[in-house]
């Protein structure tokens, strides 16, 4: 080949180098994108040819001197010309094939929003996301929560004190959730979220979406019912590590079907659902109850499309109503927990149907709620009113049954402020500058405060004769507190979009029960807890 090129260059020095130069330029024009698409072996061949020609040109020029005149040799020139044309055409075909392949080759996606695979047209996608929360809970020395007594003698009090001092400092993997979600065409989507945190193995979310229209999206499966605001916020995005007291009254997840949509230019969101009817604070998986629950929510953002002070204001109301009839094996009632995840209220239970309190009738919830975001400021709040029909069989006689409507309520307000200039939102925080001290990046820093209250109906603690903890009462003041008041402060640090480090201090004081003796109930000791968390969410 070198001899042929040598002869050719001798006879057609300008033409040869020009032809090769033009081809090389054509192959590598348009910057990196184009050159990346040229098959490397073709580019290499062409570069080698060009170098050979240039080298030979120099040699020929040196040998022949300035008086050299090329002589025509069509056969050799045409042979080289064919090589160049073939390379050109191969490159053209390669680009055409690449273009075709791009239409069908699935795209691998990897980034802070997860890892996945999607079709070339983007209509089909499977994505793996995740949420991992590693927590530490430290209770203040000597004030570890519950002091509930099982008897009235000094010995009983001592033993019970030791036995019920359950609030322990510990590390816990609060949530460990691999999230598989995807889209199946333009209309359908799904999410599957198991959770292996908190010594559990449960399905948190498992639903199918059918997004027929922005104003009509259907969801079927297991998901958060549309009632409370804080429950609807992603577990990765709630400002405090643990939910406020009001969430005790609201189901975490339920199984059913809902239709939702945005109307009036996205200024009003509606949701209407039909569910099994999960217990307060529970994640319903099995429904032993034939009666179902209807849940609905209207949430308005009247100024969403008008930039200004009120643009970030949203408010609405969620509600649910349904019948729940419990049994000895499943009362359909639940316990209420403090920020330190300690139980501070539960209905009376026993091993038999007698003395066990059951849900028995209507359970209604009404939840006015609001949120406001303006710059780094975030404010959210909700008020929960719950009516729960309960029954207790307190003896063997047919008339020894008491049924009542228990009226509970609670509220909480959470405020947060981003110190580093980012905008607050319902959907988490993206730091303006990721943590990179060498380049002046410190991530996003956020301070926060929360206050809330929860009240259980006092009637639950009295019997029909007005005696505290009497024969047919629904709750024991020695074991359960009637009210809880909570405040907390803390700081969140977001070194990157996917990592969050939080430290919360929460204090919950209890009123009217939770300790002491049956004759002389005392308030449960206040809970002072430091809650630390390192979270990865992608």
């Amino acid at each position, binding site marked *: 080949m070198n001899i042929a090129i040598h002869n050719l260059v001798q006879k057609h020095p300008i033409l040869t180098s020009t032809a090769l130069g033009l081809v090389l330029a054509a192959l590598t024009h348009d910057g990196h994108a184009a050159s990346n698409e040229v098959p490397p072996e073709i580019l290499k061949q062409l570069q080698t040819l060009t170098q050979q020609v240039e080298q030979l040109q120099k040699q020929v020029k040196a040998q022949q001197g300035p008086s050299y005149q090329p002589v025509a040799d069509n056969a050799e020139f045409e042979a080289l010309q*064919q090589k160049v*044309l*073939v390379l*050109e*055409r*191969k490159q*053209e*075909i390669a680009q*055409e*094939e690449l273009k075709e392949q791009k239409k069908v080759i699935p795209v691998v996606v990897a980034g802070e929003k997860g890892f996945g695979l999607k079709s070339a047209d983007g209509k089909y996608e499977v994505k793996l996301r995740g949420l991992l929360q590693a927590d530490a809970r430290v209770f203040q020395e000597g004030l570890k929560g519950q002091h509930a007594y099982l008897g009235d003698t000094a010995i009983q009090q001592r033993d019970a004190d030791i036995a019920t001092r359950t609030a322990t400092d510990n590390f816990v993997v609060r949530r460990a959730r691999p999230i598989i979600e995807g889209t199946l065409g333009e209309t359908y989507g799904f999410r599957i979220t198991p959770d292996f945190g908190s010594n559990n193995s449960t399905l948190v979310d498992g639903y199918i979406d059918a997004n027929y229209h922005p104003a009509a999206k259907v969801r079927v499966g297991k998901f958060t019912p549309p009632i409370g605001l804080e429950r609807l916020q992603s577990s990765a995005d709630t400002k405090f590590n643990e939910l406020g007291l009001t969430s005790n009254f609201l189901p975490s997840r339920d199984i059913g079907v809902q239709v939702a949509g945005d109307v009036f230019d996205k200024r009003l969101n509606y949701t209407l659902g039909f569910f099994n009817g999960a217990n307060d604070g529970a994640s319903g998986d099995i429904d032993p109850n034939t009666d179902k629950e209807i849940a609905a929510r209207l949430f308005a953002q009247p100024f969403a499309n008008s930039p200004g002070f009120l643009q970030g204001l949203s408010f609405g109301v969620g509600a649910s109503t349904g019948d729940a009839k419990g049994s000895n094996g499943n009362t359909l009632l639940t316990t209420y927990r403090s920020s330190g995840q300690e139980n501070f209220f539960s209905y009376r239970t026993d091993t038999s149907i007698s003395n066990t309190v059951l849900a028995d009738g209507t359970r209604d919830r009404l939840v006015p709620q609001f949120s406001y975001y303006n710059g780094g400021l975030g404010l959210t709040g909700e008020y929960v009113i719950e009516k729960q029909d309960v029954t207790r069989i307190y003896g063997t006689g047919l008339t020894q049954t008491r049924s009542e409507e228990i009226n509970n309520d609670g509220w909480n307000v959470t405020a947060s402020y981003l110190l580093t200039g980012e905008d607050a939102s319902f959907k988490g925080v993206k730091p303006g500058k990721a943590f990179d001290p060498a380049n002046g990046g410190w991530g996003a820093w956020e301070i926060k405060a929360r206050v809330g209250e929860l009240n259980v109906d006092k009637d639950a603690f009295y019997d029909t004769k007005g005696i505290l903890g009497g024969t047919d009462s629904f709750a024991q003041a020695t074991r359960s507190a009637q009210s809880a008041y909570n405040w907390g402060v803390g700081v969140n640090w977001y070194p990157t979009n996917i990592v969050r480090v939080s430290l919360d201090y929460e204090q919950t004081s209890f009123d009217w029960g939770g300790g002491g003796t049956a004759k002389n109930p005392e308030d449960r000791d206040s809970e002072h807890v430091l809650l630390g968390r390192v979270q990865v969410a992608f």
Partner: protein
Amino acid sequence: MKTSTIKKLAAALALAVSATGALAKDITLLNVSYDPTRELYEEYNKAFVKHWESKTGDKVTVNQSHGGAGKQARAVIDGLEADVVTLALSYDIDQLHEKAKLIPKDWQSRLPHNSSPYTSTIVFLVRKGNPKNIQDWDDIVQPGVGVVTPNPKTSGGARYNHLAAWAYALKHNNNDPAAAKAFVTKLYQNVSVLDSGARGATTTFLERGVGDVLLTWENEAYLALKEQGADKVEIVIPSYSILAEPPVTVVDKFANKHGNAEVAKAYLEYLYSPEGQEIAARNYYRPSDPAVAAKYASQFPKLELFTIDAVFGGWQKAQKEHFGDGGIFDQIYGK
């Protein structure tokens, strides 16, 4: 009385007009075809649209999709909702049944001539003056001859080219497969570029100036001659070549889904009509209708043609041995 009669007539007329309007349909058909049939179906579609409208009042729009036959078949299997396919060879259409059950197994018996309304063969297109003096298959395997042929993995025409060369070598080497393989190996040693379809190969040869000879469909060669002119290219007819029988069929599943079964069937049947056959002949496809074939006999040179069944035992066998994974083409060119 007179006014009343006029009103009644007017009402009847209005009813008739509206009824006609309501019955007439707008129909869209998709014909997924192989690479060099663009011109054929452009002309044929116009004729069919006119024919169907005059017959039924329905307006038909026929969309065309062209590419390498294998690639086109895969596209339909993968969901391209063709009402009809008009491909280069039966193996590719068989795949619509084998892999996706889009058509019945006996699809080829639904229309005359094994569902091939026209035939063709493989010839050589050379540059003006035939500078390499190419006369037959032996000449294109000589060193220094640049041969242009598409990729048989994607192109039906390329598979015909490959098999034609193989059959020629068998014929001249006492049916010795080893000699045939050596012959076809030499041929591919002269091939620098493999396009995905016949039209791409034509572009490589004519517009990009690559190679000394293009192995191509007879219709494609005559079309090139017509468009480029006799001062640019010449057609060389080899002594022996293959009888190409491009078949057609309704893709039942998609045609039914679109409510187009009747018109799709009619679309293909009209290919066998005198007008359809005339159009095929005008586009250099050999018509199956004896009368039209006789009329255009002088247009098509006589040469010895063999069939796939006679030499290779059918398309299924030929496909597996020559173009399947690890087959003869892979052994020669791809691996």
